[in-house]
């Protein structure tokens, strides 16, 4: 076996790149979030460590790693330590099919969308385990909320993604992006604006962010499911949340904002710009809006998002069928 087969090399480089980028994106996102939050609140955000606080996330990470890991009495040891690991591992898998550039993806698989949606469902399992195993009343409440929320917001996410794949005719992210042109008016967002809104709102719900961050509602449940975690346990949840955010935003750019298509700049740069724009929007949403109450959260989903998503799906199916005859 003299030469290593090309695909294996491709996969290994892809995996190494993904692992590195997840860690890097986590740190950058922590810094961006604290800086943006600071500037919104007219305070400078971290500025002591390194030029304008760039090394602050690194120090946070070191502090978290250095912290003592302890487990509350009465907690279930296996599940307690499994939860943060389980929160972080599936996220790595979600990064594989993301089309950063033309042909530039870790794993070229023609069912990329299905892979992402399947594994993003695993995140809720870790939140449930964390809340339940930490034998803490607040954790229990946080876990109960997280399950109801993730299950609820999974369905509109699926339906809006389905609507787009109807139009593109395939579940492969690369195909969907190729189906869109270089200029904004022939991106999918123009043909599917409602699907984009539904996707974005349910993405916020899915990653427990912004107005829907009920599982770890500081003011009600002290810290929800990760109340009892300290040190790297908490760090893993923290990184998993940001990684999930990146995945969700990059899927949104691939489906709705034309992936690597863009007038002048090279492909991957457009992809990164669009992802960071969406991330900035998510960060702004977090620091502007109060938290939604739990039953309102479910009302928004079951009474608003779901019917709209189904209607949108039927409409798209009708037009796609019509287009086939014409």
């Amino acid at each position: 076996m003299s030469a290593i087969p090309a695909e294996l090399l491709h996969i290994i480089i892809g995996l190494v790149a993904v692992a590195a980028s997840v860690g890097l994106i986590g740190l950058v996102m922590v810094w961006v979030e604290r800086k943006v939050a600071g500037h919104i609140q007219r305070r400078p955000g971290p500025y002591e460590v390194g030029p304008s606080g760039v090394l602050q996330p690194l120090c946070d990470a070191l502090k978290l790693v250095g912290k003592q890991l302890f487990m509350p009495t009465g907690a279930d040891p296996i599940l307690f330590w499994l939860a943060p690991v389980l929160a972080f591992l599936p996220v790595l898998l979600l990064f594989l099919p993301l089309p950063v550039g033309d042909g530039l993806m870790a794993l070229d698989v023609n069912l990329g969308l299905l892979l992402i949606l399947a594994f993003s469902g695993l995140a809720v399992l870790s939140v449930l385990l964390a809340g339940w195993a930490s034998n803490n009343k607040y954790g229990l409440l946080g876990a109960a909320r997280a399950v109801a929320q993730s299950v609820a917001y999974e369905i509109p996410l699926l339906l809006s993604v389905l609507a787009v794949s109807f139009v593109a005719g395939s579940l492969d992210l690369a195909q969907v992006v190729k189906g869109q042109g270089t200029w904004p008016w022939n991106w999918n967002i123009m043909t599917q604006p409602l699907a984009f809104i539904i996707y974005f709102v349910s993405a916020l719900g899915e990653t427990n962010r912004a107005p829907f961050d009920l599982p770890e509602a500081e003011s009600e449940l002290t810290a929800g499911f990760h109340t009892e975690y300290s040190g790297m346990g908490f760090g893993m949840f923290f990184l998993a949340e940001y990684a999930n955010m990146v995945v969700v935003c990059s899927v949104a750019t691939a489906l709705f904002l034309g992936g690597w298509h863009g007038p002048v700049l090279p492909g991957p740069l457009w992809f990164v710009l669009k992802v960071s724009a969406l991330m900035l929007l998510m960060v702004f949403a977090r620091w502007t809006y109060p938290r939604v109450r739990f039953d309102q959260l479910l009302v928004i989903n079951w009474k608003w998002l779901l019917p709209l998503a189904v209607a949108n799906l039927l409409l798209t199916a009708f037009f796609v069928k019509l287009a086939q005859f014409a």
Partner: protein
Amino acid sequence: MSDLWSLMVGLRVTKDYFLEPQVTVRYPWVEVNNIASFKGHLELVSAKAPGKPKCISCGMCALACPSNCLTVVKRKAPKPTPEEEQALAEAKAKGEKPKDKTPKDPEKFLYDYTLCSLCGTCMENCPVGALSFTGSPYLAGYSRDDFHFDLVQVLKNQAGLEGMDASVAPEAGKSEA
């Protein structure tokens, strides 16, 4: 629909403030400017002669203080020299009251800043206006005794080391009180 528009308005407000300059004064590197009227801890006002307090050790302030953190130790009369004793005896013989020559300013003026609630009752109750606030918030110490001052000592140090910042003086003035 108008409700959803309120979400956009919210975003606009935070965007406006995102672009505006920050309000925070970066304290250790930049001087804070709104503490001019801050009270700070107590000090004895010095009379014309530097280092000599105006205080006549009448104890009205110690009486008035709600958390009795002031104690005034009067100065004992200096041992009368033989001639003074003799002059004193004649005066008593003649019957008029001998003029009391013991100096009025206190031996020690013990002030416990850990109990003080900065209400200013002592200043208002002092007949000669011998007490005032230093107005310096920069006072730190490692233990409680750093905040037990002998204000007479503080005043002497201050007079001795002209131009020292008032807040530094207490360290130098940390007496055995």
